[in-house]
């Protein structure tokens, strides 16, 4: 069984639960934890400070422990979905859910800039970040789930609670919008043109958009 449990269903390696051949419940839980805690914390860190993000990740695993029999295979999309809901609860409780572009800006170090410059990019890193900031959180989330987290459509769709086709549409639109924002930003790098309003960084006061999990987008 192991990894062969769901061939072709998902890029995420299924493991840690049904296929995990360890007999002690706590050991199995530890296996799940060791395998996926970093992924969950990674996701939480996109929207919360370290302390809060760690709380969210810890909480997600406690929930997994309590709902062990219900844990789907592969477990990662489920875990990320739980973390997502917890982040939303945190936001509802007054702990501010940070915008991703804001988090990236806050976490950027000298090394990131150097690495960016070493990469083959047309735009500056700061400009790229500015373009990302134009996008809605819903768009940014779609993009990071497939890039930073390496999820396929099916897995990413289950994180945000929509169907894979709906997520595909969401991702497609996010790419298109980012592309447009990059072009606009790129144009702003040319001296004469004044920056279009669209590339203004989003005001920090704009509330995060909790993507309703039941919504279905139409192309």
């Amino acid at each position: 069984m192991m990894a062969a449990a769901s061939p072709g269903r998902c890029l995420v390696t299924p493991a840690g639960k049904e296929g995990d051949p360890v007999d002690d419940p706590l050991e199995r839980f530890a296996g799940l934890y060791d395998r996926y805690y970093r992924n969950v914390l990674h996701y939480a860190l996109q929207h919360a400070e370290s302390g809060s993000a760690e709380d969210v990740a810890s909480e997600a695993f406690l929930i997994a422990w309590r709902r062990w029999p219900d844990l789907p295979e592969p477990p990662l999309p489920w875990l990320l979905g739980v973390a997502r809901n917890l982040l939303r609860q945190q936001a509802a409780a007054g702990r501010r859910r940070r915008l991703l572009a804001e988090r990236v800006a806050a976490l950027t170090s000298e090394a990131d800039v150097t690495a960016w410059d070493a990469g083959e990019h047309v735009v500056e890193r700061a400009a790229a970040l500015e373009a990302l900031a134009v996008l809605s959180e819903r768009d940014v989330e779609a993009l990071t789930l497939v890039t930073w987290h390496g999820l396929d459509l099916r897995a990413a769709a289950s994180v945000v609670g929509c169907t894979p086709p709906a997520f595909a549409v969401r991702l497609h639109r996010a790419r298109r919008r980012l592309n447009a924002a990059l072009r606009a930003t790129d144009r702003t790098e040319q001296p004469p043109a004044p920056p279009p309003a669209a590339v203004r960084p989003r005001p920090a006061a704009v509330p995060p958009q909790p993507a309703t999990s039941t919504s279905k987008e139409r192309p």
Partner: protein
Amino acid sequence: MNQMDDPLKVVTDLRPAVLDQLIEHGYAQRRGADLARAAADRTVRPAPARRRRARAGYGRPRQHLIAGAVAVTAAAAVIAAVVLTGNRPAGAPRPSSSPPRADTTAGQFTTARQVLLTAAAHVASAPAAGKYWRIREITGRTWPAGTKAHPYDISQTVSFDQWNPRAAGQKGWNIFQSLGAVPASPADAAAWRAAGSPATWHSGLKPGRSSGAVPFPGAGGAPRPGELSAATAASAPGASWQVSNGVIGYVEGDLPGLTAAQFRRMPTTTAGVAAVLRHYTQELTFCAEHHFSGCSTQDQIIWDEALALLQDPVFAAVRSATFKVMAALPGVRLLGPMTDPLGRHGYGLDGGPQSPSYDPAYHPVSAVVIDPHTGALLATEDIDPMPRNVQCQTVILDGRAASQGKPLIMTRLPGGRTAPCVGSSYEGRSYPGQVDSYVAVVSTGWTDAAPVPPPSSTWEVSTDLPGDPAMQFVPCERTGC
């Protein structure tokens, strides 16, 4: 047109490198506390009675049985019938006598080997074919449920009736029913009566509310106590089904199961059965893959596989040979005469230590109760050799509770730590030898009868066999978490 960056590459490369440090830091900081917190949390213990290999014989359907058990327990809590009557469903366990529950009659057996060889000689023949391989079981789990003045424990019991079709493509059924909670022992029953014979137990959870959505505690990573939802009343039965792929049982739960035809070809000699079980142990690779886990020895794995095989659709000769293989294993202890949770007499055997646990306060003995005179496997039980400390059974539903005038109760947690909890707390009378959880086998066998499932409104479709829809993540909006 200008050359442009690929949007996905842009996003990929925007990822700050410091995230990796933060992630590793969080992992290092939290792991210990998070595992301890899970160990201290008994809300939904992931079925200690169903350690993976121990439940190998139950195979995949067992996974659904567990889910069913949880669902049923929740349902029972929601229904929360307040009437306590004497009408316990047939087959429901009576409060068992206090462990170690040694029979007063002197045992005629002095070694585990004698018990096993006698069982091998008394294996009963049974019909070798039928439409369904039916397994009926009753499971129980112990919880502290009393008050400070009258501490006692209850056992939550659930019955399972598993119908595994011989032929692929047919529906297999698991019909389950919460039989309600009963005092765990006669002494517990007395304390329960002294406490006013409560019929329901709730530790701060709103009825119907999932326990999975506990908002954040004050201190991140602090252990949180468990929760209890139980009622003495039985619930209506529920069921789950799946389209069979022909697999009808397991020898090793971590490996693919076998069909009825494959079980019929199982060797009938002791050497043959031993070779099969050894072969299966060699298929397991987890020792190499899980550096954090202590590994069972090959003999321990064979012991577990043998228990599984005893519940599979094999000829009596195979069952007999299996007992002989078990008798030849080293380190098997005779615990003595035991009465199983259904009141049947047998002998308790301990197949050896399980792999190490992360919970320092939980090292159960896994007892196997066998009736040597009928060659029947009666039950498996996890027994605490150590008194398990009383746990606060209250959950902090939200941060406001403390400011709403509810009492603040400190609770002891494994390892001597304390944690505050809010609201009512349940006290147990833990003692050495307490049965923490059990699986009692009511019957196994072929039948030509057909299952009579409860109404379709109670069905849960199982997911991991061909023909079934895949399980989806259920958003919080729908589960109430």
